């Protein structure tokens, strides 16, 4: 169980009490920490371009940009966005304390690893890697950890070919019926579990609830009480699959 308490929509997926949202080779790419006397969750992120070059950082929700001529900050009220001036793409969209929802924040972003691998936290879905995957590898699923026993929810081994392997396919209809998991959790005040579509993880410390390889597409997935949401690492050359 993490020591940071929050509820958020990140890339259209639901995260609750997960301090490290995305980690690459033990290095946090997107994380949440409690900050100050109020212990309000603060967001930390690295913003990189498609070449992996650092273009800015988010520290406790405040954005610092290196190149202000190309990337622009639009801030109105509790919402702040970074936009690429050359093509209008939204690099980061952060809403703190969104009205109409019992959430601490909503984030969508296009992040890149130092090696340039993209992580699309799109407002409606999460995609990791460059492959154009048509069907979600994982959808309408709640990944939850028992107290103190959940290191990572998803362990993804990125291979150079970017082809998804060993995909974890969850058919939506048979698992959850009509109402998506995230929608159920947004309307719930209590613990973040759904009756049918939950993998409750109580595995060995250091392990992950789900192991995947290749690029990845997540739709309507919830992460609750893990130390790390998504841990990414590159396959070693001799392990990489064609």
């Amino acid at each position, binding site marked *: 169980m993490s020591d940071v308490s929050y509820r958020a929509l990140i890339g*259209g997926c639901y995260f609750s009490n997960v301090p490290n949202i995305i980690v690459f080779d033990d290095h946090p790419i997107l994380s949440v920490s409690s900050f100050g006397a109020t212990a309000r969750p603060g967001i930390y992120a690295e913003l990189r371009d498609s070449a992996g070059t650092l273009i800015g950082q988010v520290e406790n929700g405040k954005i610092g940009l290196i190149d202000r001529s190309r990337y622009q900050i639009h801030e109105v009220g509790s919402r702040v966005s970074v936009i690429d001036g050359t093509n*209008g793409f939204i690099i980061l969209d952060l809403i703190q304390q969104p009205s109409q929802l019992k959430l601490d924040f909503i984030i969508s972003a296009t992040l890149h690893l130092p090696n340039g691998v993209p992580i699309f936290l799109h*407002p409606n879905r999460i995609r990791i890697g460059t492959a154009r995957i048509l069907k979600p590898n994982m959808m309408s699923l709640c990944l939850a950890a028992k107290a103190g026993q959940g290191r990572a929810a998803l362990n993804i081994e990125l291979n150079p070919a970017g082809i998804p392997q060993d995909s974890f396919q969850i058919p939506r209809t048979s698992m959850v019926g*009509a109402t998506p998991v995230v*929608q159920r959790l947004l309307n719930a005040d209590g613990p973040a579990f759904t009756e049918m579509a939950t993998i409750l993880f109580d595995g060995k410390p250091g392990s992950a609830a789900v192991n995947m390889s290749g690029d990845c597409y997540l739709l309507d997935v919830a992460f609750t009480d893990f130390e790390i949401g998504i841990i990414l690492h590159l396959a070693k050359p001799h392990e990489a699959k064609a």
Partner: protein
Amino acid sequence: MTEKPSFQDLLEPEISRWGQELLSRWQQRHLTIPRLLYHYTTAEGLVGILNTQSFWMTNIRYMNDFSELQYATTLALDVIATKRKQYVGKPMLVEFFHRTENSVSPFRKGNEVFAVSFCEEGNLLSQWRAYGDRGGGYAIGIDFFHLLRFLPRRCALRKVIYDPEDQQNILGQAIDSLCGFVEKMTEGLDIKEATTRNILPKCCSVLPRIFGEYLVCFKHPEFAEEKEWRLIATMDCDFVLNRNEDANLLKFRTFRGNIVPYVEVTLTNATAASRDDQCGLGFFVSEMVIGPTLNPDMNTDSLRMLLGQINPDLCPQIRQSGIPLRWL
């Protein structure tokens, strides 16, 4: 030798600068857009919006609540009358008021205003009663923050102001500011000279434009519960004089024996952008609310299918109103 700029050359940028300052203060009021704004419609309207991925912006003179717009015009005339008394000792300003008092209506023929309405609340009983179509009402929740950039025609999102004191202050401050500007620009001139130099006519033409912006955002305080926002576009519909305007953009529908002009604002660019991972724009429908109906579960299923057909990379948030409203 460089030729000295004429007074006319100096006047235009001065008026433009003054107008921009006033408008930018006004626009500040409308910057904080709620995360979602809801458009209430019937089942027929909803299917039309989703299938065509467009909204119809109705000519504001033909909207249901036109009486509310007449309220705004009356309010403006009252404020002008009050201000006119205040400046009675200044002949230039008396002339200015005389020339402008009949031109403040934003509903003049020619330069037409088109609008579509949204509410801050997605589950309002009064809206279900008005738009519910006896059990077939829906509210479409839209996140406009980035969406506005993807609309093909220039539109402005404006928050409706209901507080009469606030409304009077906005109008009064604009008049005071304009009067100060007129005095500055006509200093040392008499009315005839200010007219022949085109200063007074130019200044007079500014007030209707400024008031046109304001008045479409004013409503009677009784409607404050609606917390309305309006997506607004203008079009010069005097096609006899203005041959450049694309007349084909103006469309017509019928409603209870009336011929109602409207323009379409399409969201197809935004939908295409939302399919692109890199763009970062979400699907334009962020949430759907199903109003009081006999078949909420059936309509939830069909709506999910319809939204999935338009955008399969989506797990739409659909909620049911839950308000126990019965249609007898």
